[in-house]
């Protein structure tokens, strides 16, 4: 269970570092975010939701069935868009209106 950080998109703003409940993220020598302890990630995705630049993606470890897809978010007011990118490049977006309750 872990995340990857696209250093070309990361601005080094430090928001993901701040919110990680395991304090697993630090700045690398170039001032970009890095996950220093990938095996300790809970998979809460707080860091993804905090990133305004879509630089942080989350993936399933192969040990729990991961096949190379990644997940990242984009925020637009109270709409949160979850982008799921498949290993072959296909993408699916699920949008959640945060002002609406879950049905279940």
């Amino acid at each position, binding site marked *: 269970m872990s995340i990857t950080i696209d250093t070309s998109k990361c601005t080094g703003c430090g928001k993901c570092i701040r919110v990680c409940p395991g*304090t697993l993220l630090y700045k690398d020598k170039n001032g970009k975010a890095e996950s220093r302890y990938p095996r300790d990630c809970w998979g809460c995705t707080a860091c993804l939701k905090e990133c305004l630049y879509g630089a942080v993606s989350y993936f399933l470890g192969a040990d729990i069935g991961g096949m190379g*897809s990644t997940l990242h978010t984009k925020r637009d007011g109270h709409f949160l868009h979850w982008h799921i990118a498949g290993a072959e490049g296909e993408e699916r977006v699920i949008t959640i209106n*945060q002002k609406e309750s879950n049905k279940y």
Partner: protein
Amino acid sequence: MGRGIKLEAEILETDVLIIGGGTAGCYAALTIAGSSGARVIIAEKAHISRSGCLAAGVNALNAYIVKGETPDTYLDYARNDAAGILREDLVYSMAKGLNRVTRNMERLGLVILKDENGEYASRGRRNIKINGENIKTLLADAVESEENIQVLNRVNVVDYIVENGKAVGAYGFSIEKNILYVISSKAVICAAGGAAGLYKPNNPGFSRHKMWYCPFNTGAGYAMGIRAGAEMTTFEMRFIALRCKDTIAPTGTISQGVGAEQINGLGKEYESSYGTPKTSMRLYSTVMENRSGRGPCYLKTEGITEEQEEELLKAYLNMAPAQTLKWIEAGRGPARQNVEIEGTEPYIVGGHTGSGYWVDTERASTIEGLYAAGDVAGGSPQKYVTGCFAEAEIAALSALNHIKGKSGTAICGKRVAEILDGVNTFLGGELPLYSVEELEEAMQKAMDDYAGGISSGYTVNSGKLKLAEERIAQLMELGASLRASDLHGLKLIYELIDRLWVCRVLIKHLEARKETRWHSFHENADYPARDDKNWLKYVNSRFEDGEVKIILRDLVKRDEAYEHNN
């Protein structure tokens, strides 16, 4: 020891110190700020905006008194689920606060589904539907807007400061700066959460932290209390969750949301053949089906509509995104594939079962000036998120009452120097042969093999528990020799030591209850039957003179105001 860092002491002083800025800790702080001018410090290991159990969000409020129900019927439900071993006074007083705290959360911005009459839409008899993805950030924003609350983020609290039998503060180190905070206070509220990572987890490899409970809740609150001699209760009632395989995502949203039943590998519904449905029986029946060769077990979702599937994908994004990712990645969602389920490793968590501090009706622990709320507080299962809020409110008001007219105790320089030396010991000298990680694995393996983990079908017996006790004692010795080269490493050492203390007490509790009251949660092969004649009692413990001593206590009833007497 390359860097050879050393911590320096910084002394702080406040009225109420709250340890842990999660569900209960934030709510306790807000209660104090809303009803007094008292100063509060919250010491939080991560950052309150997303720390603790609510980091990913929550999908429903599982404890609410819906129309037609009452706090009495809530208590009846909890009593039945715990097979009689709960503190009725605690559950009842918590249940009476559930709807009030829910309204307060709505005022803070929590989105709650309403029906056509403007009332909260219920899911079953005790649940209401929300969008809880941002529940923790709502709480944190409210805390940060209060002038009298100071939040110390990135501070790992190590121990209470107890003088003349009274809690007069606590100390902890920053994991960012080389500072040891020594905090004196007139009262302390412990809200540090439960304990994960005691047992070998479902996914022991790369995804070792893909677990149900927050893996960063490492039992510090329990361990501090144990070391200080506070009485603990009901550790033997472990919590084991029934979860979606691999992702360890919740199953309730599927089973209650789309009415999916549990079926075995032969496609047959099995839960009903194991008697009355209870939290522990849903798990136990699954364990037994697998053991009988009828696994794997599933939630039967095949055939749900596309619309239902879409709603499930969204619901999981709001609390356990791994499950949605898994469905999409597999190319088959729940409408076309049943969801495989499994039991997790055991946790100690007082928000679900009865484990934790032995408190009086006011939530005071057996140490004067020390209060407990949320997952660390025992005797009150089925709290969930709203119950933790309600309990935090009670603890906060009790702590305020306690500090009236009191002045703080200054911590003397000699004591500060001793504390500093104790923590700095872990930052000096040669790195030992074993790493924290290796000792953690050894602990989890010993608990798995000998104290009823997944691989032993959650079952214990006295011979195996003896071996567990010996191994944990050895690991505690090795733990004392650990050394860290940075502050993150220092945090990991303390997290391991705290979990070893919790294991030590847990093993004693598992051994002490000589019956089997809750299948799987406490499956005692030496005493496989429930024994109401002898065991309608609380199993409590206290660490005294270097030993964990077991104390049996009589049940406390609903309308009693329980006080600590002996």
